[in-house]
């Protein structure tokens, strides 16, 4: 009897395995009055092959619509648990990031250790696609945070400080003259919006 009940309970729990695509990074740009999200998806075609990134984009008015759009293009479910970086362009940062941070915190698949960085003077998607190595961006941000060259601000800390007084600092990145990703100072947020950069270089930044 016990075995029968056990087997029955196992039957109730089993189901088809979901096909998911692991995401290693996301980039969010504003295009006119819409947003464009680009996801860096980890593809590994065989066991011996190295993991390579693939990029998919979708446009929409809010984050749920953007994520649904990418899933529609991809044909299966996005697995956001491995996402380690979210890049945002200056326009998104200037709109305010509190709503974005709240949404990401409450998303059941997103990890709170996700790092958000502002892309200075360019497209977030273009910067993410600059490097063809998976997790290269997150390694760069982790290392910079360890060496204190960029602020160590994972998602949970950003959300906390934005809620506390609306101010936050985030790492800024850019594509340098050698077409490589490089740290570009610190983006300062006041009233949840990008206010200025802290390295004193204002020519491609915003007004202080």
């Amino acid at each position: 009897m016990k075995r029968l009940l056990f087997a029955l309970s196992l039957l109730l729990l089993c189901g088809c395995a979901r096909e998911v695509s692991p995401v290693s990074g996301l980039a969010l740009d504003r295009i006119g009055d819409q947003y464009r999200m680009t996801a860096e998806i980890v593809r590994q075609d065989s066991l011996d092959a190295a993991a390579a990134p693939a990029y998919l984009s979708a446009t929409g008015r809010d984050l749920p619509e953007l994520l649904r759009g990418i899933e529609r293009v991809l044909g299966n479910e996005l697995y956001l648990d491995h996402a380690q970086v979210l890049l945002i362009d200056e326009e998104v940062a200037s709109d305010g990031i509190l709503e974005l941070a709240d949404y990401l915190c409450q998303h059941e698949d997103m990890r709170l250790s996700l790092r958000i960085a502002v892309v200075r003077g360019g497209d977030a998607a273009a910067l993410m696609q600059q490097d063809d190595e998976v997790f290269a961006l997150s390694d760069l941000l982790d290392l910079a945070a360890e060496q204190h060259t960029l602020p160590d601000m994972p998602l949970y800390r950003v959300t906390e400080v934005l809620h506390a007084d609306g101010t936050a600092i985030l790492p800024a990145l850019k594509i340098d003259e050698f077409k490589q990703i490089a740290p570009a100072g610190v983006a300062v947020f006041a009233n949840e919006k990008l206010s200025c950069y802290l390295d004193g270089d204002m020519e491609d930044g915003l007004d202080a």
Partner: protein
Amino acid sequence: MREKMFPRWGAALFALLPLSEILYCPVDQQTGYAAILASLITALICSGAALLPPTVRKLNFMSWLLAICALWPLIQSLSRMTAFVRQTVFPERSLWGLVFALTLSAILIARIGLIRCAMWSLPVFVTAGLLIALSGALTISDLHISYLQAPMWSLGVQCGRFLRVILPCALVISLSLPEQMPGAAARGMAIGGALLSLISLRTALLLGSHTAALLAYPNFVAAGLASVGDFARHGEVFFALPLLLCDLGRAAALGCVVLQPVRKIASKKAVKRHA
């Protein structure tokens, strides 16, 4: 041979009650204080209740009353476990399938009796305690002491919330134990309460109260930030498993209380038939 309950088993069973709250309780800077206060109040009341004479505790009326009182905390345990498992592990599975599986597990464990439930709660408690300590130790360098707040009046509200969940369950179990164990109730509740308090404090100092308020399961999510380099990044899974077992142990102990009067009737009928 008559089965005997050792005090350390009883203490472990009582310690499971605050521990089973860890996964579900909302967290802010006052939660740590509220948890320990509520656990100490419960320990005091349960120690007093455990001194009730055995003649009163063995009354038929008493066992029926306790069985009825155990039903609500039992349903509460099963429903919150189902919601947690569905939201975190099995979002695609049917709700009723999970309810059935968890209820079945609780009933099967409850059938072994309260003494054996208490015996099994000792290894569960030790495992949960060690993993809580490990999870706390791995995140200690990320804690923000500036988030720490002195106790405030608002902790009374949270203390009341904890008391509403822990006290009825602890009281029912305390009055249903086959032996008087005031010391075990006090020790178990104090140790379990201290662990609940420390892990809630860890979450508050790690995430901050605003971020924690956004999360459905803040202690669980905070445990996910405990990692050893690139290895074991999903610390929350190791953290949640023994705590789910704690809640299952709680549900099983309450199930034992619910089954007690039925068992009494069954054993009386068996004696009559034998005679």
